[in-house]
């Protein structure tokens, strides 16, 4: 069994929402629900996180934030969309500035609907995410080997001289183009 399922560290981001689900996520950490008994730690740092919990829908302003957090997380990583807003946009869906659910920006592995999603449902969603995490963990060595092979075939630019370096897009260029499209 993979250790990643025994020690899933989470990072939590709240998009444009009423903060209801946000508070329910934090409720999971309280003595009442105590997710730390599963080894879950709420880290504030994407580089330490395995599971990305997103509450609230995605708007034009936080696309880059969500993308950056996602890209900074080392693999294997899992995204859990919590609450109906994060799942599909919810009541905000038709708003002029709303993209919709989180899956319009980054790939989502588990959806936990609800308004607000109950702590039990959130914990259940994270536990479902653990299954996905274990699968991704099993695939990771192969993925990394493939990437190394690809990089060896076509060396890109000077940034790529050191192995295992991930460059994270700084908000700006790419997102600005997408905003233009939307």
């Amino acid at each position, binding site marked *: 069994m993979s250790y990643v399922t025994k020690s899933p560290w989470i990072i939590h981001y709240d998009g444009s929402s009423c903060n209801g689900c946000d508070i329910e996520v934090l409720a999971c950490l309280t003595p009442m629900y105590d997710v730390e008994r599963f*080894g879950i730690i709420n880290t504030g740092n994407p580089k330490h996180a395995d599971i990305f919990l997103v509450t609230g829908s995605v708007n034009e302003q936080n696309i880059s934030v969500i993308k950056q957090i996602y890209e900074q997380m*080392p693999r294997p990583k899992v995204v859990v969309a919590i609450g109906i807003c994060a799942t599909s946009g919810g009541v905000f869906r038709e708003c002029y500035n709303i993209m919709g659910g989180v899956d319009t920006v980054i790939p989502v592995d588990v959806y936990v609907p609800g308004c607000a999603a109950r702590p039990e449902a959130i914990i259940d969603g994270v536990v479902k995410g653990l299954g996905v995490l274990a699968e991704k963990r099993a695939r990771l060595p192969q993925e990394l080997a493939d990437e190394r092979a690809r990089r060896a075939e076509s060396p890109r630019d000077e940034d790529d001289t050191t192995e*295992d370096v991930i460059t994270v897009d700084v908000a700006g260029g790419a997102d600005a183009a997408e905003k233009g499209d939307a």
Partner: protein
Amino acid sequence: MSGNITVTIISVAAYFILAPFIGGLLAGIDRKLSARFQGRCGPPVLQPFYDVFKLLEKEPVTVNGAQDFYVACCLVFMIITGAFFFAGLSLLLVIFTLTTAGLFLVAAAYSSNSPYAQVGAERELLQMMAYEPMVLLTAVSLYLVTPIYDDYGSVLHSFNVIDIISHTHVGVQYLPGVFIGLLFVLTIKFRKSPFDLSMSHHAHQELVKGLTTELSGKTLAVLEVSHWYENVFLLGFVFLFFANGTALMIVVGVIVCLVAYFFETFIDNVNARMKWQFAFNASWIVSLVCGVVNLLIIYIAVIYFGWGV
């Protein structure tokens, strides 16, 4: 003489192999205790091991190659520190090697451009400035209460750990102030509230993860293991105050180490994080009042009244 060498090799090897297990277990007990203090169930005692194995499985991501090197050096120097200590060598050598390990950690944090890591590194340097005087005072005090005799019968003193633990004095008897001072700065070294400024084991502090913000995967695992080594070695420091070469005091020493660790966990749970100014002032004042005064009394007793000769 060969007997001594065998004992030295065995104790260093035991430290090298057992310290990560003991340190990891202590960390697990710490988390369990903290959870119970807060009315929670808490993670399994083996959770720190799961965490480290998990981190080893993660994709390697580093901001630059130097960082991994610095963190690896931190672990190596931490192991060397403990090896010197458990080999019974000079306390001064041990302390300076410990500082070197700490500096490598600071260098690792400085090597990234993350503002959180940078501020964490600066706070770590301030913390080092805060605890270093007391640690040195501890070494000097233990030196003064460890008289040994050379071949001609004149009195020398010794910084060597082997002399300190085998000496018939029980250190804490003469150095209660220094012991209190050491316990105080141990809160900084164990990275416990109110002095966990540069990096906290608890989530969501104002600096994200301070020193370790930019470390992930294997690098973070290496750092975690070096903390385990460090904690075991630091408890060894506490042990020095109780050892006098008898089996009874060894048992007492180990129990006091465990009580000290429990005490630090308790302090961690009942305090909020303070500003660096407080950490700095408080530890220097405690060093001065408890450490220097105690040292002065011992010094006068030794020099003017020939105590211990």
